């Protein structure tokens, strides 16, 4: 622990810290461009210069390149250091264009800040400025190369951190160029981080282009709702419109970066079809009357059919507080416990994960520092993209990745792929849990596990199911020991699946609800931010059940199918418009703060031109209420989030610490469960010879919120069917052929794609919302199917 | 019976005339003050309503009457509503003892040109002027506003301090006139006004009267640059108007009292007595306005120090000296 003196202040820092970080710990603002907490130091930009007066090194040094040592005396304010830095800024500004007013970075530009801070205001050099041609980098990133100051941050982020290969530095000498070999969209799903990382306006956010200035945005610390990892994000809104999302910092979860799905999937908040007024049978009515109607209908049905006739449906999309208040409402009405999740198999899997002793679960930070990652039936890029990035960091640190998956899982790093059938996965895990010998073809895996010091078992709840997840947990428990900690990370389907499953406990699942609806016992259904019509795999039965209902009430902020069928629709707020808590897949409670109040975006009310010229004391479209507040009102509780959190923490001992949670900070783990369900499930019969249809999620297009986001439209894949090359050859199918897929009573004509890396005997389709593939559901056992060639293109 | 009716009728006419003249004077004094102050500052003053702004008081009245009568949420309602009336009524009542002309011979009877010639008129006047502070104090307290309360406290402190000096400065006058009745005091000045025979008493009384009327340089209770508007910060509409009317009525009444006590009342050569009386009152009012246009406001501690350390001893000395001289003269006569 070296102690050094910076600007007459003494600071003690851990071994290996550089002087720049030490100075930042003292609260000294050190100008820097190339240094970044996540990327480290390269000493390229020369603006963090400090004068080293005493100690092992002396003279003018780049503070990011000098390791803090005992006895160092450093000055950031020495006249030589100040002059040095301002000269460097002046050089950097030699070729920088005079275009801050039309640059989107203006206001949050590090170069701007440093230039102003250094006092540089007049260009003394009279030579001409260097210029470049720009490139079209796709729908997310705008390129303006003239503004570049050659700090290399983008290349280090894109190539080193994110594993992208299609963007880099070209040219030589005074002609350094940061771009692609030729125009075209950036391929990495983490390309959006270039926007955050670029210290000037070379790489800016294209959907956000010319929309707002940083200082005009309403921003707050929030949590990304687009997968179960719960990355920290900072959404920015202006004129009642969510306009962009930038990465927040949570060292335990996402670090400094987020994926493009989280960054560009925000537009569902501004969706023009979003429910914005309470509707009773399609008629608008004020909130007070809507709540009265709801209470009246419910009590009427309870009087007539008993409290058993009311069913409540929560979801993994709703916050912990609103899901809890739904249960509380059920207790008050005397109904059965709410069902959490419209997809029974996914719900069961999530509950299996929730049972895990939370001390076994790995955070993304632990994944990043692991030395062996066993990815069993998880597709990180599709189910939790930042996990893929965390895996890459583990590999960069010398870790090893082994993939057991029937799908051709892509990772932004090297990985050993061991194709296997979906039903083999639980089997495999069972063997691991029992401590038996693995089959011969998986010998490398056994060896690797033997040598690993900090292995992490990664699974996906969709492919593993409840049994597989339980087996994975059992395996981790078996492998875990004091000298060799073994952790698990299981990807869940929705952002708050963990929280919802934790509240569900031993409650009923959606299959039981379907049975009750079939029997006609259920007369009313109240859905909390749930869309069973899209998510329930048994849509036919559900539709029949819904027909028999007398009353369907929906609280939601999405224009969902269920919302359209609702008798009573109560508009709620999206994550950015409210406050609450989400529990991510590792059991980390994370509070999010309200970014802005709901309202119809000015872009719509003004129709692109100037806003309407009239006075009004009401905000158009401002009626959506936070779901927890609506439910608290229905329960007759005070509408006070802190009080609800206190009550919830008292009722659910595992959620202790919830009342102290704040949107700042890394969040807090829920307390460990009893781990009761780690009993090893029985083996499943192997499937027959015919082709099996496996439905899986994709990076874009599967997740319900981002599927409604316009900026992601250009990258959403078109429907396709994926076949193993050998199977395809057997069936006489070539790539891009149109094939007919027959499964589950449906016939679809889709273009074929081929892969050599997937398991044989499988047919894979992505579940793409809003396409014909929406009627296939992930998280189900594979369906027997038939594939026939229709035509060649 | 007929006689009584006639007396009553004459009394009513007299009262009505006095009331009309007083209120009109108060209203036009506002205008006169604004115009004079403006001219002293090389401005025009109000000149939009009517010829040369002559209808400005009417416009102000309409404005004040049509404005919202605002009652602060936390105010003491009844005291708040009562206070402005108290301020205006005490000023009006004080005029009852002021003789403005010699008694008139009308229908064969003596009609005194005073509402009520009390034999303790001076004491009555002092009683009412002490009551007037209640209007200010209650208004400031009932507003439940820190500015109003501070203004009210200042007003009370100031009035207490100056009433003493004021009272003491009058004792020599009473000694000289040998009466408490204002009419008799005026009669005693038929030859020479007391302002000349006892200028020190006149000076003390004049300064104390300035302080009593809360005018510059003693306008601390409503010092607008510290206390927003002092005791009437929370008042609006006609209630504020009543404070305003009370203030200018007070100006007239003090002018009349000063005229009666020191300037010889209606006595004067050539012109009819009522003109002399009005002229003297207006002259006093002009001097008040002139002072407002010229002198800055005192600091509160200066005000107190001046009252207690300068005016009060001076008044006492003056009382002793006048008494001594009168004894000596009385002994001689």
């Amino acid at each position, binding site marked *: 622990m070296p102690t050094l003196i910076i600007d007459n202040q003494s600071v003690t820092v851990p071994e290996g810290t550089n002087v720049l970080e030490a100075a930042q710990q003292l609260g000294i603002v050190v100008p820097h461009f190339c240094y970044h907490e996540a990327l480290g130091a390269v000493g390229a930009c020369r603006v963090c210069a400090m004068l080293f007066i005493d100690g092992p090194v002396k003279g003018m040094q780049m503070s990011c390149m000098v390791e803090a040592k005992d006895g160092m005396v450093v000055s950031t304010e020495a006249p030589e250091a100040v002059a040095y830095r301002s000269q460097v800024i002046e050089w950097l500004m030699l070729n920088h*264009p*005079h*275009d*801050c*007013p*039309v640059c989107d970075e*203006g*206001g949050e530009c590090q170069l701007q800040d440093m230039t102003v801070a250094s006092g540089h205001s007049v260009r003394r050099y009279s030579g*001409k*400025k*260097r*210029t*470049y*041609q*720009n490139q079209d980098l796709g729908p997310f990133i705008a390129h*303006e190369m*003239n503004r570049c100051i050659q700090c290399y941050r983008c290349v280090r982020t894109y190539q080193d951190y994110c594993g992208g290969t299609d963007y880099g530095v*070209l*040219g*030589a*000498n*005074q*002609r350094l*160029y940061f771009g692609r070999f030729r125009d075209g969209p950036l391929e990495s799903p983490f390309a959006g981080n270039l926007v955050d990382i670029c210290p000037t306006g070379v790489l800016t956010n294209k959907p956000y*282009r*010319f*929309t*707002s*200035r940083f*200082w*005009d945005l309403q921003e707050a610390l929030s949590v990304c709702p687009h997968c179960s990892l719960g990355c920290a994000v900072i959404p920015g809104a202006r*004129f009642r419109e969510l306009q962009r999302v930038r990465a927040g910092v949570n060292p335990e979860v996402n670090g400094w970066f987020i994926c493009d799905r989280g960054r560009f999937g925000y537009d569902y908040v501004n969706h023009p079809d979003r429910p914005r007024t309470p509707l009773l049978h399609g008629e608008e009515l004020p909130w007070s009357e809507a709540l009265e109607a709801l209470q009246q209908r419910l009590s009427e049905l309870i009087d007539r059919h008993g409290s058993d006739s009311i069913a409540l449906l929560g979801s993994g999309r709703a916050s912990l507080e609103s899901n809890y208040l739904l249960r509380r409402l059920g207790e008050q009405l005397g109904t059965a416990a709410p069902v959490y999740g419209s997809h029974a198999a996914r719900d069961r899997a999530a509950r299996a994960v929730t049972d895990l002793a939370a001390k076994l679960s790995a955070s993304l930070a632990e994944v990043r520092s692991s030395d062996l990652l066993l990815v069993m039936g998880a597709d990180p890029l599709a189910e939790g993209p930042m996990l893929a990035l965390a895996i890459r960091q583990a590999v960069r640190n010398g870790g090893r990745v082994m993939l057991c998956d029937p799908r051709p899982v892509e990772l932004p790093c090297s990985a050993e792929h061991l194709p296997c059938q979906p039903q083999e996965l639980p089997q495999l895990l069972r063997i691991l849990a029992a401590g038996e010998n693995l089959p011969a073809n998986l010998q490398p895996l056994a060896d690797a596990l033997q040598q690993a010091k900090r292995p992490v078992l990664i699974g996906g709840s969709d492919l593993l199911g409840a049994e597989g997840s339980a087996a994975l947990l059992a395996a981790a428990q078996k492998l875990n020991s004091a000298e060799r900690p073994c952790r698990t990370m299981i990807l869940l389907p929705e952002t708050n699946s963990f929280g919802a499953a934790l509240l569900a406990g031993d409650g009923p699942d959606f299959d039981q609800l379907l049975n009750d609806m079939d029997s006609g016992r259920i007369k009313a259904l109240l859905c909390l931010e749930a869309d069973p019509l899209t998510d329930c795999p048994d849509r036919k039965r559900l539709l029949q059940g819904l027909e028999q209902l007398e009353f369907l009430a929906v609280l939601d902020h999405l224009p969902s199918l269920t919302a359209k069928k609702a008798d009573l629709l109560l508009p709620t707020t999206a994550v950015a418009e409210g406050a609450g808590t989400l529990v991510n897949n590792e059991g980390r409670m994370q509070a999010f703060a309200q970014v802005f109040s709901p309202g119809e975006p*000015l872009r719509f009310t*003004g129709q*692109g*031109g*100037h*806003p309407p*010229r*009239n*006075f009004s004391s009401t905000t158009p479209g401002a009626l959506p209420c936070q779901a927890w507040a609506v439910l608290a009102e229905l329960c007759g509780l005070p509408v006070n989030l802190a009080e609800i959190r206190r009550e919830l923490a008292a009722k659910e001992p595992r959620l202790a610490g919830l009342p102290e949670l704040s949107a700042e900070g890394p969040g807090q783990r829920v307390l460990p469960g009893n781990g009761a369900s780690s009993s090893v499930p029985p083996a499943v019969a192997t499937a027959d010879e015919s082709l099996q249809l496996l439905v899986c999620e994709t990076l874009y297009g599967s997740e319900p919120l981002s599927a409604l986001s316009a900026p992601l439209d250009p990258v959403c894949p078109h429907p396709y069917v994926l076949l193993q090359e050998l199977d395809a050859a057997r069936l006489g199918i070539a790539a891009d052929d149109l094939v007919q897929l027959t499964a589950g009573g449906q016939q679809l004509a889709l273009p074929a794609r081929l892969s050599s890396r997937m398991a044989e005997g499988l047919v894979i389709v992505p579940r793409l919302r809003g396409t014909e593939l929406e009627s296939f559901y992930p998280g189900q056992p594979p369906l027997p199917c038939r594939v026939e060639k229709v035509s060649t293109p | 019976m007929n006689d009584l009716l006639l007396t009553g009728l004459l009394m009513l006419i007299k009262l009505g005339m006095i009331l009309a003249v007083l209120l009109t004077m108060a209203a036009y004094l506002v205008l006169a003050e604004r115009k*004079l102050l*403006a*001219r*002293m*500052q*090389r*401005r*025009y003053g109000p000149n939009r309503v009517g010829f040369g702004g002559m209808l400005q008081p009417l416009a102000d009245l309409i404005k004040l009457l049509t404005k919202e009568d605002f009652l602060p949420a936390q105010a003491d309602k009844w005291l708040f509503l009562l206070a402005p009336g108290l301020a205006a009524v005490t000023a009006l009542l004080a005029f009852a003892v002021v003789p403005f002309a010699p008694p008139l011979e009308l229908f064969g009877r003596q009609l005194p040109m005073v509402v009520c010639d009390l034999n303790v008129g001076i004491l009555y006047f002092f009683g009412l002027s002490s009551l007037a502070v209640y209007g200010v104090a209650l208004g400031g307290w009932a507003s439940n506003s820190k500015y109003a309360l501070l203004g009210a406290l200042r007003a009370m402190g100031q009035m207490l301090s100056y009433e003493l000096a004021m009272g003491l400065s009058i004792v020599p006058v009473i000694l000289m006139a040998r009466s408490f009745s204002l009419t008799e005091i005026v009669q005693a000045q038929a030859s020479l006004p007391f302002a000349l025979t006892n200028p020190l008493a006149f000076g003390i009384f004049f300064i104390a009267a300035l302080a009593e009327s809360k005018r510059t340089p003693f306008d601390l209770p409503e010092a607008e640059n510290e206390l927003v508007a002092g005791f009437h910060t929370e008042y609006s509409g006609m209630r504020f108007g009543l404070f305003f009317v009370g203030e200018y009525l007070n100006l007239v009444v003090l002018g009349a009292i000063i005229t009666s006590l020191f300037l010889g009342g209606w006595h004067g050569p050539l012109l009819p007595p009522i003109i002399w009386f009005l002229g003297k009152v207006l002259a006093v009012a002009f001097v008040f306005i*002139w*002072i407002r*246009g*010229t*002198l800055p406001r005192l600091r509160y501690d200066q005000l107190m120090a001046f009252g207690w350390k300068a005016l009060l001893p001076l008044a006492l000395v003056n009382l002793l000296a006048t008494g001594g001289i009168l004894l000596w003269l009385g002994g001689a006569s």
Partner: protein
Amino acid sequence: MNLWRDIKGTFQPFWITLRYLFKRPVTISYPEQKRTLPPRYRARMILTRDPDGEERCVACHLCSAACPVDCISMQAAERADGRRHAAWFRINFARCIYCGLCAEACPTLAIQMSSEYELGNRDLLKLVWEKEDLLVDHGGKDPDYHFYRHTGIGVVAPRGGNNDELPPVDIKTNLP
């Protein structure tokens, strides 16, 4: 203590105010009499045009950031040629305090102050002015300034085509 000075200081002002009482007022009776404004008097703002006759405003939001009373709002948009401009630009003159900070902040010289000061109105909505109301057809006090000729991002000239720019570099050359 200089008693004589104090007495003089108390009574001399009375003479001055009395003298002033009889002097002619210096007031200019505004609606009837109007004073001649200095030529560079700064009252309400205008939006000027560049030498090509295009709007100078690039909707950079600096004026709305500088505005101490938040009376300016706007939305930027991009034209087909990449030019940034204001889709709408609104100023609420009912709120404006005519401080001129917007003109000072304006990096493109689009906002300048004109000498028009008579904006009084009884209808507040008539005091909300849009871009069309503010645009004038001249360049104001600096008619030759053209922001995009100096920006170096190739909107009015091809990239690298402005006077103070080199042609775009050839990144594929190996020459030193």
